């Protein structure tokens, strides 16, 4: 991680700092959003009683969040970090939207 200041011109150093900052945002905000989506989907669709599904989903959320954060900082680039969060998040959001749309059509 960039602890040594780059001796070359300021451009790359700034870029590195922005990359780190973007990872931090991805980890904290993106991680929380992805975890929340996972929790919502699991709470609704786990094959158990409603209260049980909610509890299981919520109890597991911290493991999911930790994995998301580890992923963000293990990914080879900041872009990959974001992609690794955004793709599952979008899929989950899509799933929720489809079910909501299907529900409103059927009603």
């Amino acid at each position: 991680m960039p602890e040594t200041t780059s001796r070359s011109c300021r451009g790359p150093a700034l870029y590195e700092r922005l990359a780190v900052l973007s990872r931090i945002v991805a980890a904290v905000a993106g991680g929380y959003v992805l975890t929340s989506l996972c929790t919502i989907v699991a709470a609704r669709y786990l094959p158990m009683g409603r209260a049980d599904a909610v509890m299981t989903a919520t109890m597991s959320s911290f493991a999911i969040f930790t994995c998301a954060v580890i992923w963000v900082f293990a990914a080879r680039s900041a872009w990959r970090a974001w992609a690794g969060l955004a793709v599952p998040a979008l899929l989950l959001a899509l799933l929720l939207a489809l079910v909501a749309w299907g529900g409103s059509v059927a009603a």
Partner: protein
Amino acid sequence: MKEGLRQSMAWLHTWSGLLVCWVLLLVFAGGSASYFKDEISFWMMPELHATEREPVPQAQAIERAVGYLQQQAPQAERWFITLPTARSTALRVGWIGAAPKDGPVGSTRSRFQSELLDARTGSKLAVRQTRGGEFLYRLHFDLHYMPVQWARWIVSLCALFMLVAIVSGVITHKRIFKDFFTFRPRKGQRSWLDAHNATAVLALPFHLMITYTGLVTLMFMIMPWGIQSAYRDQGGESAFFEEVFPSGAGRGKPAGVAAPLVALAPLAAQAQQHWQGVPPALVVVNHPGDAKATVVIRREKTATLSYLQPAMVFNGLTGVEQATVGEQPSPTAVTRGVLYGLHLGHFADPWLRVLFFLCGLSGYLMVATGALLWGVKTRQKQAKAIAQGARPGFGLRLVEALNLGVIAGLPIAFASYFWANRLLPLDLAQRAQMEINVFFAAWALAAVLAQCRPSLGMWRVQLGMGAVLFIGIPVLNILTTHSHLGVTLLLGRGPWPVAGFDLLMLALGAALALAERLLARRQRKPGARPSAPRAAQARGIEETA
């Protein structure tokens, strides 16, 4: 990162740990003390030490409690009667005062009051006003001087950072098995790293468990979206909580019609019979004196990991059993109960409590050695510049000052709290809060001094001060009470929790004194290799040996 997994995890471990380490030190210190909060509270109320501790029959205790509550709080929204147990022999009553008819309702927490009663006579116990061990317990998640919600969010954030730090630490620790037993003292930076590894890896099951389960205790606050989305169309949050915590049932609106409350002692006896002899622990009366009153009786803990206990709900007028709740929790509810229970450690007998306490102290040392390691490493990086006259960087100065003020300052704060308990006048107004103010004032003084002069000399001063204060506690006990070590230990009259507390204070004081002596030796030989790592591990000797 192009540098590889281990390096990026090392960076993540450093920052997720360093940014929150000082809060974590407070959490570990308060949390470790919490394992003995009942014993601490008992020590802090010396008026109780001489009282006959023959157990009072349950029925009598309940009747006395009801008598007191009917006098003190006949219009209360809810009564609580906590029956005496083996660990906590006092009869505690509490009530939530009725909401004022006009003006803001305020939270139930703000209208809550509690008293300790003599189970034999039903009158208020003549004890000094003190929060006792409850303060140290609440401290580690409600902090202080701030709204509870803020504190819990701060602590939750720090716990999440800690979870990330644990996982990233394990990933980055290349030779976790090879280094399992490795501790090389007197080798500077290497020794700090070894100490950090040892206190972390040897107690890793505990650290992982306590962090995750701590998050679980606050999980509905941190991650409410599961409840929100699954219960959106069916009553929302309150519907979920009623389903999962049905003993909160019976709280509905009062009828507004006065009616006499049924006798509670027979209900408790009935409940005990239903539970095959396991006694009740808590009796809650909703809307006492109202036509819609209900009585909820919760069973005492049994030897299971899960903290869930079944409860029985009775009609407050007729005493007819209305429901039994929590008898057959689902596996998921039991899982949550176990996770919650593991954090509280309520199932622990005295020996296991000691083990948990030692692991908690190991957590304190783990965080402390980590923060100190960062300081040592960074100072070495800046060594050349500093030797040429430059000032240490802002980050380094801040971290070194915070390290001193918290690692050495917290023991001073804890000891001062116990000193205040013995020395503050008994009739002081707001005495309980004043004891707590002394805790923070002492800590603030230590922290400010640390900011002014974060030097080795100041480390010695503060460690030495901590040692003097801790060792002074049993001495203070001799001067101010009749239940000092001379009586409790040498004459063998007990009470044993009081003797144990005094002995622990001596042990902690001795450990701090040892640390101070090791630093003194290092100061006398300025060119020698730093031996401060021994101080941290030496504290480990006193606490684990």
